[in-house]
């Protein structure tokens, strides 16, 4: 059996209310919140970045366990806000974690699905027997141009996933990836902020790609929406995942455990996987999970998972842990995000 063996997450303690951002720009906060279905978002502090958050997430379950660390044969970090254009984050992370030096390392980027592609690649490497296990991290200190709609949703967070074959907690049963050259969101080299094509990010981008990936996975696995206990879709805002669910025949109940965007925002590459973290807190052995990421540019990775009996030993407290928070104002937000 192949799949997720362990996992961890990190969400910075700082939060900014959508109301404060809306007030900054003279917008009606109620309307913004109603439209995006987000009330606050997590913000990394001034001394936090994608590496520190990835480390926090990975070290939360990898500290001190030298046997597991030695078996890790690959380290992949997915993000769209790497500190360096040239210099791997994955090697720094591995060094900080105290891994062996016998690992394949690289950073991946594909907008908000930067890490799920790496997860699928890691699965293939483990399945082939080339490596014993792989560490995959999703981490972003997501930024947005001031006053842009994205500013209300772009948040911070990281999660880390150990992919292996022993004591698997969530078997990766099947996956399907759907991609095309669809430029709905991008950040040019040396640009500080991402750009997007407004409503083009919806129907021809998010809904088309995520919808096709899910439909093709359902076909491949000969399953139907009602076969799944939990469903997690990428959460660029609060309304897109529910709309996609309606289009594809999933219920609100199937979505609710992984729906974390209203209070955390969209941590880009960590966003959908944070929904999976939330689901793993409550999932029972035997539960089927349907997960689908979305990355602008564009593509979607749909993954079918099955929870095993090993989940209980690895289950993490998620909901309660994110209640510890400290609110910041807009001025502090600009300082933390190093906005010039």
């Amino acid at each position, binding site marked *: 059996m192949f799949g997720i063996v362990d996992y961890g997450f990190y969400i910075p303690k700082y939060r900014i209310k959508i109301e404060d951002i809306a007030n900054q720009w003279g917008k009606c906060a109620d309307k913004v919140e109603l439209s995006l279905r987000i009330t606050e978002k997590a913000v990394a502090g001034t001394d936090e970045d994608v590496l520190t958050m990835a480390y926090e997430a990975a070290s939360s379950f990898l500290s001190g366990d030298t046997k597991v660390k030695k078996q890790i044969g690959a380290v992949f970090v997915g993000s769209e806000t790497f500190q360096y254009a040239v210099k791997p984050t994955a090697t720094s992370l591995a060094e900080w974690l105290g891994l062996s030096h016998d690992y394949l390392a690289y950073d991946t980027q594909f907008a908000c699905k930067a890490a799920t592609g790496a997860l699928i690649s890691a699965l293939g490497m483990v399945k082939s027997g080339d490596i014993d296990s792989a560490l995959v991290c999703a981490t972003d200190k997501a930024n947005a141009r001031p006053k842009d709609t994205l500013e209300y949703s772009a948040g911070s967070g990281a999660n880390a996933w150990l992919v292996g074959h022993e004591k698997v907690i969530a078997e990766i049963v099947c996956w399907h990836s759907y991609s095309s050259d669809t430029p709905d969101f991008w950040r040019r080299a040396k640009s500080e902020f991402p*750009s997007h094509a*407004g409503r*083009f990010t919806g129907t*021809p981008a998010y809904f088309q790609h995520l919808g096709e990936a899910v439909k093709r996975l359902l076909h491949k696995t000969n399953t139907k929406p009602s076969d799944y206990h939990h469903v997690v879709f990428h959460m660029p805002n609060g309304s897109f995942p529910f709309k996609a669910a309606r289009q594809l025949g999933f219920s609100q109940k199937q979505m609710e455990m992984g729906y974390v965007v209203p209070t955390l925002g969209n941590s880009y590459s960590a966003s959908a996987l944070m929904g999976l973290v939330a689901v793993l807190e409550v999932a029972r052995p035997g539960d089927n999970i349907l997960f689908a990421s979305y990355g602008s540019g564009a593509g979607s990775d749909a993954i079918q998972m099955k929870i095993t009996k090993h989940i209980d030993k690895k289950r993490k407290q998620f909901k309660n842990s994110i209640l510890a928070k400290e609110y910041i104002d807009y001025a502090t937000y600009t300082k933390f995000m190093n906005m010039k």
Partner: protein
Amino acid sequence: MSSIVGYYSTPFGELWDKSLDDLFLEAATGIMNDLQIEMKQIDAIFFGNMLGGVVEKQLLLSAHLSELLDVNIPIYRAEAACASGGMAFHSAHEYLKSNPNKTVLVLGAEKMTDITASEITEALATAASHKEQSVGLTFPGVYALMAQVYLDTYGYSEEHLAAISVKNHAHGVLNDKAHFRRYVTIDNVLESPYVAYPLKVLDSSPISDGAAALIMTNDAQMIQNRKNVTILASETATDTISIAKRKRLDEVESTKVAGNNAFLKAKIKRTAIDVMEVHDCFSIAEILALEDLGFWKKGQGGKLAQEMVTHRDSGNNTIVNTSGGLKAAGHPVGSTGIKQIGEIYLQLTRQAQERQVKNALYGLAHNVGGSGGVAVVSILGI
């Protein structure tokens, strides 16, 4: 006299899978197929397009049409900003006056959604005075100034403007080619975000893609057995590019001149007009248009707009913007003037389906370029 014997339109909206060439081709082949006309029966093509050179970096669009339609006939482009379609129609009408037994294809097409909102706003602003552009005046800004002057002068409020959008959205619901097919309320309009005070999002026409086509002819054989309307007049007039040099901001001189000339040519009274498509790029523009065309007395427009006297359910004789206008039907700028004529054609030939105005005999189309630098007013009759 020249006649219109057919009309075709693509849907208007965010047509992300269509290029400018795709839109031109669909409109041209659509109308030819509908009317069962072959390209060899077409003597010339007139088309309206404003932004091909900016959005798709393509000029010499006549050569595009030559390639798309496999023809070597004369192809004429009209560029008059948002009146490009109306000007193409006007030019075709002038051509037919001096060329007997000819049939022409008239097209309007615009691709607007492939660039960002700020880029398209900047592109549209190239139809304003460069001096005024350089101090940051965009088209919403220009019409906002006109609206402020109008509201202040005659004691109206934003609610009066909002009624125009409410009416046109109600009409647009019945148009299966419209960009927006949903009702809005006065409160929806008033609660929408400001674009440029006092104009809000729901006072403003959208950025749309779309194309439209007409077949115009003075060939009796071509007219025979086809649903047709007669072009009684098509007049155009101009005014200063700079709004600072206008005599007044509560009226559009080019509309007044073109309108008066059109009624003189058509030899009908304003009361004979049953249906009108007027240029409502912003809500204030429809009020000014109805005053400047002589249907409403200067300064009464706000009150009459609020009473929705031109709503299809009003029971009155003159219904305005049955297509939904630019506001709800959409505003692919080079296509708009053609769509307006097409809507009048559909109404006069009883092909307007659910939005049909009963017993419509005469119609008027009013297309404006810039903030009134160009106006085209055309009158059609059955």
